[in-house]
């Protein structure tokens, strides 16, 4: 094959690509099977986003499948469980539909939301400036802190300043890639698809540390007590449920659901069940708004 042929192939590829570029927004909302909405639940008009969900009978929620205690697929029980999952169930219950959980890994959750694959994303997603431009967030439902995890017998890593030359693992598409680049520019970043791979890498010694939200790290410690948190907190990470920007009714609905959840005691129960019993921490439902959350993140990122 001559050089010209290769150029021709590239040209064809470009042609295909430009054709594919046009497919940016696709409407969602294909109603599938119908099921009668439960009683005692506020009914919405079909044709509105919430009404459509009720007609379908299911709401699709993207959660993590491998991040205890927020969302993980328990093979023994065969279901997805966790703090995020319980929140999702609360939303579904209030809407009178069944929750359908799908796996949302860090680099696909926003595209999934934007193209309608998922109605809500509840997957330890931090509210920050870049994401706010792409999607809408509910009021923060949890504030995690960015921390560093390492093996107990490692004496060299004492905090984020000691990461120079060390290898640190975090997930592709998470906020920590940027955070670590800022706070530990000399560290060697290893980016993987999911935190379970980070845990594996730390355990088998191929990275020196893992950095992400403290609750995710706590989930790792629960699975392996030779690990410990070290150093000061790097960032504040307010979690919010992700919703498509145009879907303002769903946003309002979710915010109302969360408000009720936080005040009627379900929040405390879930917190205790998933986090408190392991860390001894007290539940502190956040009361800040989305904008305040964005500010918080900006300040703490330094």
């Amino acid at each position, binding site marked *: *094959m001559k050089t010209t*042929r290769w150029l*021709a*192939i590239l040209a*064809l*590829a470009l042609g295909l690509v430009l054709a*594919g570029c046009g*497919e940016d927004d*696709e*409407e*969602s909302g*294909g109603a*599938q099977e119908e099921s009668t909405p439960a009683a005692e639940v506020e009914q919405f008009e079909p044709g509105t986003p919430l009404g459509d969900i009720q007609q379908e009978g299911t709401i699709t929620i993207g959660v993590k*499948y*491998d991040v*205890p205690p927020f969302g*993980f*697929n*328990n*093979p*023994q*029980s065969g279901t997805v469980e966790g703090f995020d999952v319980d929140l999702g169930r609360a939303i579904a219950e209030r809407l009178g539909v069944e929750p359908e959980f*799908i*796996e949302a*890994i860090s*680099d*696909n959750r926003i*595209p999934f939301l934007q*193209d*309608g*694959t998922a109605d809500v994303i509840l997957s330890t997603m931090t509210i920050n400036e870049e994401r706010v431009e792409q999607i809408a967030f509910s009021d923060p439902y949890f504030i995690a802190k960015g921390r560093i995890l390492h093996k107990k017998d490692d004496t060299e890593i004492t905090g984020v300043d000691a990461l120079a030359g060390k290898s640190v693992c975090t997930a592709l598409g998470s906020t920590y890639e940027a955070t670590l680049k800022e706070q530990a520019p000399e560290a060697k970043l290893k980016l993987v*698809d999911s935190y*379970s791979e980070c*845990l*594996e890498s730390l355990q088998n010694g191929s990275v020196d540390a893992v950095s992400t939200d403290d609750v995710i790290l706590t989930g790792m410690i*629960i*699975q392996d007590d030779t690990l410990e948190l070290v150093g000061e907190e790097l960032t504040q990470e307010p979690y919010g449920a992700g919703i498509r920007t145009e879907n303002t009714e769903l946003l309002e609905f979710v915010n109302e659901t969360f408000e009720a959840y936080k005040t009627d005691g379900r929040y405390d129960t879930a917190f205790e069940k998933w986090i408190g019993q392991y860390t001894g921490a007290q539940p502190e439902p956040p009361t800040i708004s989305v904008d305040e959350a964005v500010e918080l993140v900006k300040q703490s990122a330094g």
Partner: protein
Amino acid sequence: MTFAVFEWLNSGNNLSFILEGFAINLEIALVAILLALVAGLALALLRLSRNRLVSTVAGLWVDLFRNLPLLLLILFLFLWIPQGWRNTWENTIPGWAPEAFQSGLMLAGLSGLVLYNSAVLAEIMRAGILSLPRGQAEAASALGLGYRQSMLHVILPQGLRRMVPATVSQLITLNKDTTLVSIIAITEVMRRARTVTATSGNPFTGGGVDAPILEVFIFVGLLFIAVNFALSRLSKRLEVRERRRSGSVPKPQVRGLEEQVA
């Protein structure tokens, strides 16, 4: 290493969990090869078209997709396929299809596999057809058969039969390639093996016997080797039969090797 190697296989429903996943891989491979054969045949015919423009464009398409990493195609489709298509998939997939196929993610996985393999198979078919002695085509036209008729009744049946061994070889490769869809979160055997290693022996997730990664993946490897080895034996037998039937090996012995490499 414990004395009882592979004892995790007996604990809980680990074994059935993994075997079910393996069945999914085989199912994906089967569906993909069937679709790829159809698409590949179409591409091959376009390639052989007497219309220069059509054959050139088809040729470029085939060359493009044969030279791209399959994983790149799969990951791209995973992130790019719009919701409308995913919805259509989930709506049209029949209820009796296995659970893994119900998810719209399978659309990305299958499309990637089919896009790539149809290009590869198109080349195999084209080689098979072109390897027919010229005499066949000439005889057909001498007998008064038009292009389409000679294709349908003379060229294609013989040419396609010659590529059966190569197609079985490609199925072996396809079997191996199905593991790549684990990277887009389809719960086939690789994902399930990962779950077993991550959750067994772990008090937080239910306990049970510890399943070392080395053992679990050697087991998974053996599953693939068993199936693929059987397929390769089948391919050799088909090749021998073909040789006996047509009296010659249509291509040099090392042909088709490149298509077999993952």
